[in-house]
C-alpha cells in the first residue's frame, strides 16, 4: 500500500518563520533511500541539508529552487511502501500532489485544547447586571417594566441589548400617560359625573391602537401637490355612463388615482416598501389599499391586489366589488391583507388637504381631497381649472423630502397626461 509522506520545511532556529529552497538534489521519480540527502535549504541563520524521512520514491517537489516556504509547510512528497493493514483502503494511484501547503502536524481535536472553559456564574433571570440596572434607572423604568422585558441572555436574563431593544420600541410617554389616565382613584361614577361614558368597542380600540402605534413608529411628514384634473373632469362627465354600462363599475377619481399610482410606484420601490425591524423590504408586488369609511365611523382598507397588472377597467371593477363588500361587512381577510401602499380619499367630505396616517407596516399613504374649481394662472391669464390636491404622507425614517417630491411630481405628470385611450388600455 502506498503511503504519502510529506517533506516539510523545518524550523531552523526559534524565531525563524520561513526558509528558502536552494536546490533539489533528487528528481521527481527517483528512488530514495532513508536519510538520503534530498535538498538544501537556507534560513536567516544557516544552510542545511534535508534528508529523506523514509525510503521510497520522490513523488513531488512542491517548491522549486529560489522559492520560499513557511516553517512547517509541505515542500515535497514521498511515496512510501507501507504494509497493508486490515480494513484500510489503498491510496489512489499517484495523482497531482496536494497544492495547498499544510502544517505537518494536523490540528489537534478540540478536546486537546485544554484551557479551562471560562465558568460564568449561573444566575436566575431575576438578576440584572449593574449596567442593565443603570440603564433602567436612567430611563425611568420601573422594576415591573424591567421584569416585563423578555431576556435573551443565559437563563433568560435581560441583557444590555435586550434593554436597549425594548427602549427603542417603547411607546413614548406611554407609561407616564397611562399612569396619569389609569389613576386608580377614578371610579366609573367619577367618569359619569363628567359626561356620557361611551366604552370603546374592540374594533374602535384596535383602530385606535393602530393609529397611535403608527404615529409612534413612523416619522410622519405630509407633502402636498396640486394636480390639474380639468381634462379628467371633462372626460369623466363625457364617458361616465357608457363606462359604467360597459364595465359595471363606477368611474371614480379614486379609481383613476389608484391606476396612476400603481404604475408610478414601479419607479419608486422605496415608497412601495415595508419596514420590518431594522430592514426595509422593497415589496415585489404592488397591492394598493383603499380606505373606506363605514357608516359607524369605523374604517377598513380593502386591497386591490397586483394593481399594476390590472387595467383601469379591472381596477374599477375590483374597487367596486371591495367597497360593496366593505359596506356589507363581508370583507374576508384576503381582501384586506398584503397591502403595500394606501390611498385615502377624504374629498368626499369636502376637505381638500389632509394629513393622513400611514397604514403600518407601509411607508407612505396618498391622500386625495375633493375636486374643486379654482382660479389658476395659465400663460399670464387667469382661468378656471379643476384642481385635485394630493396630500402625500411618508415615513421620513426611510423616505426623504426629495423623493417624496419627485414621487408626487411623477403622479401629477402621469395624471395630467391621462387620455381616454390610456385609461382603456392595459398600460399607461
Amino acid at each position, binding site marked *: 500500500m502506498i503511503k504519502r509522506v510529506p517533506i516539510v520545511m523545518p524550523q531552523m*532556529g526559534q524565531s525563524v518563520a520561513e526558509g528558502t529552497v536552494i536546490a533539489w538534489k533528487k528528481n521527481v521519480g527517483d528512488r530514495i533511500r532513508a536519510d538520503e540527502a534530498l535538498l538544501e535549504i537556507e*534560513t536567516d541563520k544557516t544552510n542545511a541539508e534535508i534528508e529523506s524521512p523514509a525510503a521510497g520514491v520522490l513523488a513531488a517537489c512542491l517548491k522549486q529552487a529560489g522559492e520560499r516556504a513557511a516553517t512547517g509547510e509541505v515542500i515535497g512528497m514521498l511515496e512510501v511502501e507501507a504494509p497493508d493493514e486490515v480494513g484500510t483502503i489503498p491510496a489512489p494511484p499517484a495523482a497531482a500532489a496536494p497544492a495547498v501547503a499544510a502544517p505537518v502536524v494536523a490540528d489537534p481535536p478540540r478536546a486537546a485544547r*485544554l484551557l479551562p472553559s471560562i465558568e460564568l456564574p449561573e444566575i436566575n433571570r431575576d438578576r440584572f447586571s449593574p449596567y442593565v440596572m443603570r440603564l433602567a434607572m436612567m430611563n425611568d423604568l420601573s422594576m415591573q417594566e424591567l421584569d416585563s422585558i423578555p431576556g435573551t441572555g443565559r437563563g433568560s436574563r435581560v441583557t444590555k441589548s435586550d434593554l436597549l431593544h425594548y427602549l427603542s420600541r417603547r411607546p413614548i410617554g406611554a407609561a407616564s400617560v397611562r399612569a396619569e389616565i389609569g389613576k386608580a382613584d377614578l371610579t366609573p361614577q367619577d367618569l359619569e359625573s363628567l359626561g356620557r361614558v361611551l366604552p370603546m368597542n374592540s374594533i374602535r380600540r384596535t383602530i385606535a391602537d393602530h393609529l397611535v402605534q403608527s404615529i409612534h413608529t413612523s416619522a410622519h411628514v405630509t407633502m402636498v401637490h396640486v394636480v390639474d384634473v380639468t381634462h379628467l373632469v371633462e372626460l369623466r362627465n363625457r364617458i361616465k355612463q357608457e363606462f359604467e354600462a360597459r364595465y359595471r363599475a363606477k368611474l371614480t377619481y379614486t379609481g383613476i388615482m389608484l391606476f396612476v399610482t400603481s404604475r408610478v410606484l414601479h419607479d419608486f420601490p422605496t415608497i412601495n416598501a415595508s419596514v420590518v425591524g431594522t430592514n426595509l423590504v422593497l415589496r415585489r408586488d404592488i397591492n394598493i389599499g383603499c380606505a373606506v369609511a363605514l357608516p359607524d365611523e369605523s374604517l377598513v382598507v380593502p386591497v386591490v391586489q397586483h394593481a399594476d397588472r390590472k387595467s383601469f377597467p379591472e381596477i374599477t371593477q375590483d374597487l367596486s366589488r371591495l367597497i360593496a363588500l366593505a359596506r356589507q361587512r363581508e370583507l374576508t381577510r384576503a381582501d384586506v391583507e398584503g397591502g403595500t401602499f394606501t390611498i385615502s380619499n377624504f374629498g368626499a367630505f369636502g376637505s381638500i388637504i389632509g394629513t393622513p396616517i400611514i397604514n403600518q407596516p407601509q411607508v407612505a399613504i396618498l391622500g386625495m381631497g375633493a375636486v374643486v374649481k379654482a382660479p389658476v394662472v395659465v400663460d399670464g391669464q387667469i382661468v378656471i381649472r379643476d384642481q385635485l390636491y394630493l396630500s402625500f404622507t411618508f415615513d421620513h425614517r426611510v423616505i426623504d423630502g426629495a423623493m417624496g417630491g419627485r414621487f408626487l411630481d411623477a403622479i401629477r405628470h402621469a395624471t395630467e397626461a391621462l387620455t381616454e385611450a390610456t385609461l382603456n388600455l392595459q398600460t399607461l
Partner: protein
Amino acid sequence: MSRKQTKATPPAAARGRPAQAAPPGSALLKCMLLTQLTEERLVRLYHQGRISGGVYISRGQEAIGAATAAAGGPDDLYAPLIRDMSVHIGRGEPVLDIFRHCLGRVTGPMKGRDGNVHYGCLARGVYPMISHLGAMLPVVTGAVMARRRQGRPAVGFAYLGDGATSTGDFHEAVNFAAVFDVPVIFVIENNQFAYSTPITRQFRCRNLADRAVGYGIEGLAADGNEAVDLYRLVRGLVDQLRVRPRPVLLVCDTMRMRGHGAHDDFSYVPRDLLERFTARDPLDLARARLIADGALTAAEVARLEQVCQAEVDAACQQALAEPPPDPATLTEGVYAAG
C-alpha cells in the same frame, strides 16, 4: 561531619600522574560512538522537522564525558550540561530514552515536559539541567554534601563550559564548595566558544584553572580530547577526593566542532582553529590509541561501530513509534502529593 577514610593513598594519583588501572577500552569508545551517532541522528530528525525546538550536540567533546563518567563510582553524582550526552550514556542512560526525550515522547525520562538537553535520571544520580548556566553547580554541591552526611563517600561531577564560568552562580557554587570542602570536580569544558563569543571575550585569566587559586582550591588543566589519559587522570583524582574531600577545578581543553545548536552555522569560528582541532578529533584519537595499546583490533573497532549504529537505529525507530504526552495530563504533577 563523620566520614569513612581509606588508609591507602594511590601514590601516582597524589602526584597527578595517571593511575595504572584502565577500563576495557571498548567501553570508552562505545560511549563516544553512541554519543556521536545518536547526535547525528538527532540532527537529521531536526532537519526533517520531526524534532521541535532545538538540537544541541557535543561533536568534538565526546571524550570528556566518556572519561569522567567512567571514572566515577556507582554512588557518585553528576550534573551534566549542554554538551554532555556522553556523560548520560556513560552513566547508563539508554540511547532509547534519549530519543524518546528529544522527540518529546511521554515514555521519555521527562515525559515530554522538557526537551533537548534537559534530561537526567535521579535514580542513577544524574541531575537534569535547567537552562540557566551555573544554576546546577550549587545543586550538585549540596547533593554531595547530603550524601556524605549519610556516610556515603560520594564525589560530585559538575559540568560547565567556559562561558558558564563567568556567571555569578559559578562563583557562588565554587566558593561554597571550597568553604565546606565538598568533593566536587567542576569539569570545565573549555570548547573555545560560548555560542558566538570566543574565550578571549569570556575571561582575562591565562587559563581557567588559574581561577582555582582565588577560591583556595586546586586547578588542573587537561587535554579534553584524549579519552584514555583523561580517564586515568580523573580516576586518580576521584580516589583522592574520596579520601581528602575538597572541590577541584578540572579544565579540559577541547573544541565545539559544530554550531551552538543545529540552527547555527558557526561562521564566527576561525577556520584554522577548527582545522587544528579536527586533526585531534577525540574519536579518531581514541580509536588509534586503543589499537596502538593493543586493547582492540581494527576489526573489533569496526564491529563496535556497526553494533552502535544498529543500536541507535533501533532506538530511533522505536522512539518514533511511541506516543506524545496526552494534553489531558497537562496540569498533573505540578506539586508532589502528600
